[in-house]
């Protein structure tokens, strides 16, 4: 069935799939955003526990989606995996530490004999929520701004600075996306908690955080998007695969791919609508708009990054070393095999939806936290 697709079609399909997974991941970062709000939303032990149990019951899903994104990129675009992870070494290693800390913190936090104390695990959750998300945003920004690497004729990559990823922090655009992602995650976290926790005082505090964080997010996000749309972008010739700088490349991509433009505008409107009804109308349903809005906006950014003959992992050191969906991908055979495996994705989405609905019928409330019969973080 999929064997008849061309290599280029499969490469596009897989960039689409990775865009979907990546956009889902950004939405699910509400867990991390919520982790940075534990102390702000919970002023005593009971309240903090409610907040932690609200977001904590979803942490594994965000974590799994992150792993899925990494594994998917490995399988579909292995040259990206080798170049970015093996080059921006320190950035990814610190990122990893942040997520290792998260994995144990929910479970260990209130257990007797936890050695490090409850506050330490809450600090770990904060580190994951703050630094992990910021770094992810900063590294993803290099997909637009470029990194310093050289790719040999054997497709082995060599990073050209021994800062190995720390240099990412020297570019204001990278910092801007890092902070934008961080404040977006905090906004989404607050929106999720408003929806999921049945306690007025927490909802009121979260509502205030939605407004504050959304404003800061918008400042960073608009700065990043406007600069990206106005800058030269990394393009390549579809026949010769030669890489060149094209003025207004990303703006052109939006104009030449109206679907991406519509997704972007619809996404931004939905995010703002979700924030608006939470802030002005005291609605609890903001996450149902801002969440999908985030997904659509990020999806459109992935589209302009990888489609329309654009280098999705550019080299600012040597233009011709830049990675595209064509030169970084797996073989036709592997992408075909993987495409069959991707048929499982709707099945996975269906059972996640079904089980979440079953569990989330009951919101988090005071009684739930006192019940001794349940697994409580």
């Amino acid at each position, binding site marked *: 069935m999929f064997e008849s697709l061309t290599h280029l079609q499969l490469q596009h399909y897989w960039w689409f799939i990775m865009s979907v997974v990546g956009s889902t991941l950004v939405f699910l970062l509400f867990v991390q955003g919520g982790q940075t709000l534990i102390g702000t939303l919970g002023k005593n*032990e009971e309240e903090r526990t409610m907040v932690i149990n609200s977001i904590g019951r979803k942490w*594994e*899903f965000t*974590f*799994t989606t992150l*792993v*899925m994104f990494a*594994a998917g990129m*490995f*399988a579909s675009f*292995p040259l990206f*995996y*080798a*170049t970015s*992870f*093996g*080059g921006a*070494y*320190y950035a*990814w*290693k610190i990122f*990893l530490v942040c*997520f*290792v*800390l998260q994995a*144990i913190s*929910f479970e*260990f936090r*209130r*257990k*007797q*004999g*936890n*050695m*490090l104390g409850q506050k330490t695990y809450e600090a770990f959750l904060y580190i994951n929520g703050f630094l992990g998300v910021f770094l992810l945003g900063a590294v993803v920004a290099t997909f637009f701004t470029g990194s310093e690497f050289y790719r040999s*004729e*054997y497709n*082995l*990559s*060599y*990073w050209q600075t*021994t800062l*190995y990823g720390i240099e990412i922090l020297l570019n204001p655009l990278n910092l801007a996306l890092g902070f934008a992602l961080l404040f977006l995650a905090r906004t989404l976290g607050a929106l999720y908690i408003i929806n999921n926790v049945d306690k007025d005082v927490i909802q009121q505090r979260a509502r205030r955080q939605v407004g504050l964080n959304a404003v800061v997010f918008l400042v960073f996000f608009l700065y990043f998007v406007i600069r990206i749309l106005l800058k030269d972008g990394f393009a390549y010739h579809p026949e010769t695969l030669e890489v060149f700088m094209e003025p207004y490349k990303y703006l052109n991509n939006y104009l030449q791919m109206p679907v991406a433009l519509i997704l972007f505008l619809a996404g931004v409107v939905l995010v703002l609508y979700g924030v608006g009804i939470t802030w002005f109308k005291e609605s609890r349903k903001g996450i149902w708009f801002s969440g999908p809005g985030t997904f659509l906006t990020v999806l459109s950014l992935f589209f302009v990054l990888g489609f329309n003959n654009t280098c999705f992992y550019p080299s600012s050191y040597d233009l011709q070393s830049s990675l595209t969906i064509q030169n970084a991908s*797996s*073989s036709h*055979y*592997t992408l075909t*095999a*993987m495409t069959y*495996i*991707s048929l499982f994705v709707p099945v*996975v989405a269906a059972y*996640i939806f079904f*089980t*979440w609905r*079953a*569990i989330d019928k*009951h919101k988090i409330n005071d009684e739930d936290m006192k019940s*001794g019969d349940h*697994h409580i973080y």
Partner: protein
Amino acid sequence: MIENIDLALVNWSRGQFALVAMYHWLFIPLTLGMTYIIAFTQTIYVRTGDKEWERIAKFWAKLFGINFAIGVGTGIILGLEFGTNWANYSWISGDIFGAPLAAEGIMAFFLESTFIAVMFFGWGKVSKKFHLVSVYLVAFGASLSALWILVANAWMNYPVGMVFNPDTARHEMVDFWAILFSPYAINKFLHTITSGFVISSFFIVAVSGWYLLKGRNILLAKRSIVIAASFGLLSSLFLATTGDGSAYWVAQKQPAKLAAMEGLYEGEEGAGLVAIGLLRPGKQIGDGEKAFIFKIEIPKLLSVLGYRNPNAFVPGVDDLVLGNAGQDIMSAEEKITRGKVALNALADYKEAVALKDTAGAEAAHARFEENYFYMGYGHLFDPNGIIPNVPFIFYSFRIMVMLGFAFIALFLLILYLAVTDKLEENRWLLRTSILAFPLAFLASMAGWIVAEVGRQPWTIQGLLPTMMSTSNINANAVILTFWMFAALLTVLVLAEFKIMTTTIKRGPDNAKKGGENV
């Protein structure tokens, strides 16, 4: 392909991977096996309605949760480490190696993470049957996850289903099913997963044994021991069978690993299996000296296990390094020469393509294809380097096998005394069963040493040496992050250990009230 080899970079990269992998393997066996044991106990609860079985299931699920979290945390480091520390490998084999990892993500990780939420938070919120099915799905998800990652690992030991594409300079998949159903992979999966079942069984037997020694939670302990010892006995018997399969496939595909496992220097027909032996220090390849100070050997058994023929020739270290014309075994030096021809042909091919010299490219390609099988050897300098560390592999193998057989006897005895209700009278056995838990880990780690150190000097057997597989970064970056992970993981593992022992000491009744320090 790569001009300079930085041995510090190679060794620290290996060290970092080994460090994280060994920490990871402290938790994964329990994840693999405990889910099934919890599922069995919960099944009895759902069928009988006996509240004690519910209490048992919930208690082990509590301990499972503590263990699971840190297993996930250490797992993500390993997955990304292929990129951060083994970037060259990730490109050269990513076309094959990445697919099982992605399949693991789509098929297994989501299954685990979704239904584990039901397992933990679904009590009282979903029906008993749905909850039980969720526990089985978590167990199945964990096993499926193991399948994919072990398929990938098996491919590194026995590469099948691919060709080398000189244009992209990497191995590319041509037969997905050959990789998935490689007999090496199937056997590796079954052997490894059952080792996890055995460790999990010992964990439950050890905790329950401790309760019996203390005279606490008697019913929970007795019932748990019967379930765990039954599961452990069946698993350890199966482990021995798949162990035999492992030896067979190693003999077929990795003769150097087998020679190291047996300390066999001079190959022979009708080779015996060394049951116990002491290797002579200072033994050199091809020096004609005896390899052992003493040994007790079972005649012809190695030939039988490795080749299913009591008179089969089993090549030794000397044959593999120096060659053996009589047995049609090429010397390592000849393989290195041919490998260098392959690498030069690849370079010529690249040059000809760049110059658009079609005839030159075709000629170079033909030369490459002729010698492709030895390509990996072209990177090596020392013929002796094709043999892994013999004493390390030899003794590790014996530790694993001896403990494996001892475990069968131990499970049999525990089960017999549990069924006849004489366990509490035999306190020495309860103490032994507690000791057996760390010994089960020792056996399992020894098995991994045989598998992974025994594969050296290769990441992909015969095709890609470990020293060519690292990222092209400064060794200091790897050293720094090695210590960072060593410190972090040590602290977290100690914390996990403390929580685990505290929760066990408090027992199920406390755990039932939350077990938390509120």
